[in-house]
């Protein structure tokens, strides 16, 4: 077995293990899904470029991998056709000195299985197809069974049509054999236009330095090494370089052996497809962030609290909680206030009723909250502006580290249309069950106030009676007294005085104390109302802004993770050194072989 054979075997079964067709079909599906999910947020160019490659991959996999399509590509005059004929053993392709020689691809098929479908797919003209399987050849072509060899037109002549044909076929074939010659191996047309774009396709690219008979042996080795260096710069460090001479036949057998191994492994179609898909993945992946972008829960997004604050302001939450507090105070005053002044509380409008929040609950009917529109003042322009600003901050904070298109999507999601939000806010505020408690002590204090008031009235009337009696010079009636006893056994405080003064003072005192206690209760109720309203506003914020933003972030993360590099194939770095060494060994072996000729 030739050294190329060993190399070929390792190339078709590299570190990552053999790829199989089904896995690749799945990968095509995954990439399509990523394109669909990413939509317009991936880079337009990459998305546009992806679809043809994905379609090609499916078509190629659909055609089966039993056949291996190998194309001889290269510059005009490098000897593609001569090499093609040398491999075929028959003068199938036209050769000549006039440049460019070959105008349309020529195909040669080894083996009995039909290849018509494959050749139709490749659009090789029927008159340029030959079968290399005749009784005359007996068994000596058996090693190439399964091979479809194409001779491509040149890619660098003044004839543009040739270049377009090469461009088309370069995307389709399984193994690309680039035939170069000592004059042209460093042409920019080859390296910039083709090889650099094939970076990462090391397994399915083979360089053949033809016309090596024109070089002195030392120059041949140096040239081969130089070509290898240029390949490494192109990103094809592991691609093989062979030397041949179609004229003397040197190296043709080795090339043939290399092709035989490639055909036998039956893996090149898969390798090529895999490399193409990896290209698609890598170019699509440039449209997403390189690293994981965290997807926090909606309420933990940066700037979420400020947004909720701004929305609460726009929803009139401060006014509502003020009203709740005031309502509590007023009701307390009405129930526990000093009876002679209780009526004044009725003179003011109920704050909750004024906001349209009280009647609904008080009436207790089944009207759906959606149908009720509160009369909470509509948000002012500055409140709307504050909401916009807060939304913009959320957008700016969440678009950190995202590629521009995703960042724009996040910013868009963070800036919802104003009227809808205002509506949602209004519904949320109306839907909140506001706390409206009537503590039991109100009744007790209220009753006490009544008792005290009655006592005061009784005392006053009594005193008045006494006064009238005194004015009429009626004899003093005994007035009962209360309080500590004096030395003579009488009490200090006359009862009517005690009733009147006590009733008044204690009533005022009780009213004052009640107000203090009720104020504390009102503050508690205000806190509870604020909590409930804030929760409602939070829901609106989550529905209108934070949720959509989190969804964009989640979509991005989904697309990003489905476009992350496959973890199982550390192929780019690890095998390079050994491949290089093997390639070196192959080169010296090739040198030996050439000197043998």
């Amino acid at each position, binding site marked *: 077995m030739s050294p190329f054979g060993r190399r070929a075997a390792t190339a078709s079964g590299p570190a990552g293990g053999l790829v199989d067709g089904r896995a690749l079909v799945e990968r095509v599906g995954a990439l399509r899904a990523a394109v669909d999910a990413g939509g317009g947020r991936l880079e337009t160019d990459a998305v546009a470029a992806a679809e043809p490659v994905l379609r090609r991959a499916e078509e190629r996999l659909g055609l089966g991998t039993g056949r291996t399509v190998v194309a001889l590509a290269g510059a005009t005059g490098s000897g593609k056709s001569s090499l093609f004929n040398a491999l075929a053993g028959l003068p199938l392709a036209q050769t000549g000195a006039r440049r460019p020689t070959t105008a349309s691809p020529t195909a040669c098929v080894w083996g009995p299985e039909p290849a018509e479908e494959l050749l139709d797919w490749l659009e090789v003209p029927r008159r340029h197809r030959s079968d290399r399987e005749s009784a005359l050849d007996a068994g000596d072509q058996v090693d190439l069974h399964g091979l479809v060899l194409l001779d491509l037109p040149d890619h660098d002549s003044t004839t543009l049509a040739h270049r377009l044909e090469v461009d088309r076929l370069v995307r389709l074939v399984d193994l690309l054999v680039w035939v170069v010659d000592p004059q042209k191996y460093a042409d920019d047309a080859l390296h910039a236009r083709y090889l650099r774009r094939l970076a990462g396709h090391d397994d399915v690219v083979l360089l053949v330095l033809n016309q090596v008979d024109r070089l002195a042996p030392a120059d041949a080795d140096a040239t081969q090494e130089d070509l290898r260096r240029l390949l490494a710069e192109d990103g094809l460090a592991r691609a093989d370089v062979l030397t041949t001479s179609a004229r003397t036949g040197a190296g043709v057998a080795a090339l043939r052996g290399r092709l035989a191994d490639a055909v036998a492994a039956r893996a090149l179609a898969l390798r090529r497809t895999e490399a193409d898909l990896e290209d698609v993945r890598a170019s699509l992946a440039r449209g997403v962030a390189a690293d994981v972008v965290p997807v926090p829960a909606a309420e933990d997004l940066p700037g979420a609290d400020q947004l909720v604050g701004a929305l609460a302001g726009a929803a009139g939450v401060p006014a509502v909680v003020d009203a709740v507090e005031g309502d509590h105070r007023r009701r307390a005053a009405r129930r526990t206030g000093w009876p002679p002044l209780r009526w004044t509380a009725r003179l003011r409008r109920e704050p909750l009723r004024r906001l349209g929040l009280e009647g609904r609950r008080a009436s207790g009917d089944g009207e759906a909250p959606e149908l009720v529109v509160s009369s909470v003042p509509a948000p002012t322009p500055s409140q709307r502006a504050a909401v916009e600003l807060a939304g913009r901050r959320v957008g700016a904070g969440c678009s950190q580290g995202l590629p*521009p298109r995703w960042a724009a999507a996040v910013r868009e999601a963070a800036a919802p249309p104003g009227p809808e939000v205002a509506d949602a806010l209004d519904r949320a505020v109306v839907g909140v069950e506001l706390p409206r408690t009537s503590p039991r002590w109100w009744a007790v204090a209220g009753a006490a106030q009544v008792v005290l008031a009655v006592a005061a009235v009784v005392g006053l009337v009594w005193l008045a009676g006494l006064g009238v009696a005194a004015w009429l010079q009626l004899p003093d009636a005994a007035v009962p007294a209360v309080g500590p006893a004096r030395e003579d056994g009488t009490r200090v405080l006359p009862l009517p005085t005690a009733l009147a003064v006590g009733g008044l003072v204690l009533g005022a005192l009780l009213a004052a104390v009640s107000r203090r206690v009720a104020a504390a209760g009102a503050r508690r109720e205000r806190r509870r109302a604020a909590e409930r309203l804030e929760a409602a506003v939070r829901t609106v914020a989550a529905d209108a802004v934070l949720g959509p933003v989190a969804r964009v972030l989640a979509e991005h993360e989904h697309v990003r993770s489905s476009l992350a590099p496959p973890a199982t194939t550390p192929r780019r770095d690890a095998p390079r050194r050994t491949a290089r060494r093997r390639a070196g060994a192959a080169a010296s072996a090739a040198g030996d072989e050439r000197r043998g000729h």
Partner: protein
Amino acid sequence: MSEAGDGGQLLASLERLRTELDGLRLPLDLPDAGRGRAGAAAVRDQLDDYLLPRLRQIDAPLLAVVGGSTGAGKSTLVNSLLRERVTRAGALRPTTRSPVLAHHPDDAPWFTGDRVLPALARSTGGDEPGGPAGATSPAASGLRLVSSPAVPAGLALIDAPDVDSVVDANRALAAQLLAAADLWVFVTTAARYADAVPWDLLAGAARRGASVAVVLDRVPAGAGDDAVLREVRADLAGMLSRGGLGAAPLFTVVEADGGDVDGLLPEAAVAPLRSWLDGLAGDARRRSLVVRRTLTGALDSLPERLAPVAGAASAQASASGLLHDDVVAAFATGREELETELTDGTLLRGEVLARWQEFVGTGELFRSLDAAVGRLRDRVGALVRGRPAPGAEPVGAAVRSGVADLVRARCAGALDRTRDRWASRPAGAQVLALAGPALELPDGFDERVARLVRDWQRGVLDLVRAEGEGRRTRARVLSFGVNALGVALMVVVFASTAFIPTGAEVGVGLGAAAVGQRLLEAVFGDAAVRALAARARADLLRRVDELVDVPRRRLDEVLDAAGVDDAAADRLAAALADVAAARRADA
């Protein structure tokens, strides 16, 4: 020669063109900017390397540049012509990286200075450093001078780098050298003669009418190849005549099959080319013909070559104009919204309205009118209710925060609109990156907004105070309190353009404004109130304008710093017109 004498005007106009090209900046990354920059650099180089020196000294030695594809055998050809290894030939591509200029010893003074190719440092003798070169290898910026008696006097040969290898610097240098050549000796081979890249250059040379000689090199020698040679030669000749180069002399050099002496081709192989060059060097008339032909062609091609440059320059100007317009439009919209919202009564909602109603509706306004009673009642009320009565200050605070939010939001909106518009422009990404923090509100903007509103409020109070200086009104102003009247004036200003109430809230707001208006009219009179409101409103808008200008100016500065020269295209066209006029005067 006569050209050197009256070519002075042409020379001056070309020097002016050179200055224009040197100063030309195409900073925006527009689609055609790269082409424009490259075109400007190429023409500038040609002016330096060829046109200016040639016009200054029309009888300087003829410069023949041997150029062509990599591996075509240029270096071997030059060595063989000189019968000496002056330049390295080899199997590794590309071989020649720094150009070699071979001249007759008598012609040395023409080339040792920086008369031609001033950008290339001169060196003499020694071999060039070898070693592999990649696409990104640095440009070999030197020009090696080799003095050899084998070069005919009156002619110098340059061994140029290839025009088509992977080494970018080589291709650039080759293009520069070809542009500086009086005569292009185009070297190709039997395998290469149909390559697209050199043919593009040849077609360019044909268009310009440059003098070209073609060498078909590396023709395989030996029996049976004669037919091949004839076929290839005929094909190439056909291509040349189709390409407009039918007049170019075509030489064939047979590849020595291992029979090289020191890597040189046999003398006989290069004899025809050699004798053609000798004849050219020796015949002053023919030489001058070649020189004039190429010179005229180069001058003729200037407008065509500068068209994309001028196009790129005017594209820069119009792109920059569009970017400026975007800023202007975005801020004009923001300013308009702001003016509307500040004066059409929409501010009289929510917080401001609530505080105003609290101030007016709860009687605080009228309570504060009777200061002594009011203060006592306030104190009693505070005692009973546990909190002080609201005065004018809460309204002022509400106004402050309302106006500040509005200004900040509209400025941020204008910046956002600018960002969006810029993002859709061709050079958008670049400008957005340049702008960076200028697309955010500046640091301390919030404080500036707050200061603006405070200053305006102070101004309004001053207005009221000044208006109240009149003997009759003074007492009334004092009785109402300056603060209360100031707040009323603010409320009037906020509704000053609201003629048609459109909704309940606006109605309420206008009612509030009407209360303020009546109060003010009672104090100052009808006409005075209108004048006061107009002045206060103008003052507010002026201050707002000043503030809005701050972020807008920052964006303008960003665009100005990008360095687009609006007049560059015009100046370039003017310089070209000068050149054309000078040539007409010469003719």
